[in-house]
């Protein structure tokens, strides 16, 4: 299912890129033939809440008291799209424990196509955790977050301290899905 959704998103991306006259529905795209009926089995729609960098920091402070896993992503980042399902799986795995999952989208806030695609992707992924959009000029957002690239996963301890900064900044030590899971386990064991 997850692969199908991903393929659907990528097909959608390509369709938009080549300038389809009509905006395709993601589920039609996923069906592959463009004629499938749209079956709305779930009315839930993801929201993407814009936050300035300052507001983002306040959001983090408000989450103190639990382990907080932040996935930084964008629709222009293919590795981010490919790893996002793991974030959703982990959110389900740790649903009963003191872990909050949050996504922070770093798409261009002024690019309506990308924002719409981001919302559809989150909806399709069933990303039922808080989803934020960085409301800054994207290059300035990277600077303020001290990010070189995405995907990146920041994991905060219950005291609010940044405990794991998982990035691709070092070619010889780029993080894997297992690193994210291991970090959460370790923080839960310690708290």
């Amino acid at each position, binding site marked *: 299912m997850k692969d199908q959704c991903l393929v659907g998103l990528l097909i959608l991306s390509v369709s938009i890129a080549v300038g389809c006259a009509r905006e395709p529905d993601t589920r039609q795209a996923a069906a592959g033939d463009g004629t499938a009926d749209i079956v709305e089995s779930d009315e839930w729609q993801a929201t993407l809440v814009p936050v300035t960098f300052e507001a983002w920091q306040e959001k983090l402070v408000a989450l103190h008291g639990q382990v907080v896993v932040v996935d930084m992503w964008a629709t222009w*980042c293919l590795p981010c799209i490919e790893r996002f399902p793991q974030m959703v799986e982990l959110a389900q795995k740790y649903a009963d424990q003191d872990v909050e999952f949050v996504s922070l989208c770093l798409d261009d806030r002024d690019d309506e196509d990308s924002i719409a695609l981001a919302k559809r992707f989150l909806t399709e992924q069933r990303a039922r955790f808080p989803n934020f959009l960085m409301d800054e000029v994207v290059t300035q957002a*990277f600077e303020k977050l001290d990010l070189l*690239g995405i995907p990146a996963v920041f994991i905060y301890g219950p*005291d609010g301290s*940044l405990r794991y900064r998982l990035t*691709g900044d*070092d*070619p010889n030590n780029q*993080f894997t899905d297992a690193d994210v899971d291991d970090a959460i386990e370790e923080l839960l064991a310690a708290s």
Partner: protein
Amino acid sequence: MNLRGLNLTALLLTMAILPCPALQAGEYNAVIDIGEPMPQFSDLPATDGTTLSSSDLEEEVVILVFLANHCPWVKGMDPDLVELGESIQSDKVRIVGVSVNHREDDRLPAMKEHAAQAGYNFTYIYDESQELGRALGATRTPEYYIFDKDRRLVYMGLLHNSPASKRRDGTINYTEGQPTEFYVVDNVKALLAGEEVTVAETRAHGCSVEYEQD
């Protein structure tokens, strides 16, 4: 590392426990620093059917630029890169594009198509072993590395101060408006004039390079 918003306890905890060490080489690079020599490479295949080795580079200044066909930040900056090639038509300067990713649309066949489509006017090579990319700590596309006549690294980072991305509607959006600081052009001019570069390192912005992990 940005520590705004973290208190002293958090800072100490972070320093003590952070599993990934902070970048240790350049300000924005985990592997290489300004002043280090250009890594050697041999017989990397190019889109024009030839191969290129570092020993083939005889020009006074060499610019290696890391690219990825699939990346909107590369596509958005392609016109400026091609313009760079036109503006420094000189037998003293050589531009070499490098693709590193293993995803299909970043491999050699796709590179050939992309180079033709974008009008690349420079050699575009595929670093399939990823050794060159690793040796340069190249983790984003596009990112520029300039080497002087002694093949020492004198600059790494952005082409200019307003990275551009190609949106899905085909338009190109400069994040900071029209560029006003042209790091690569100005540094090349300085080198050709026998002067020091003015800016040595900037924070490259773009898609992440994916390295195969053991």
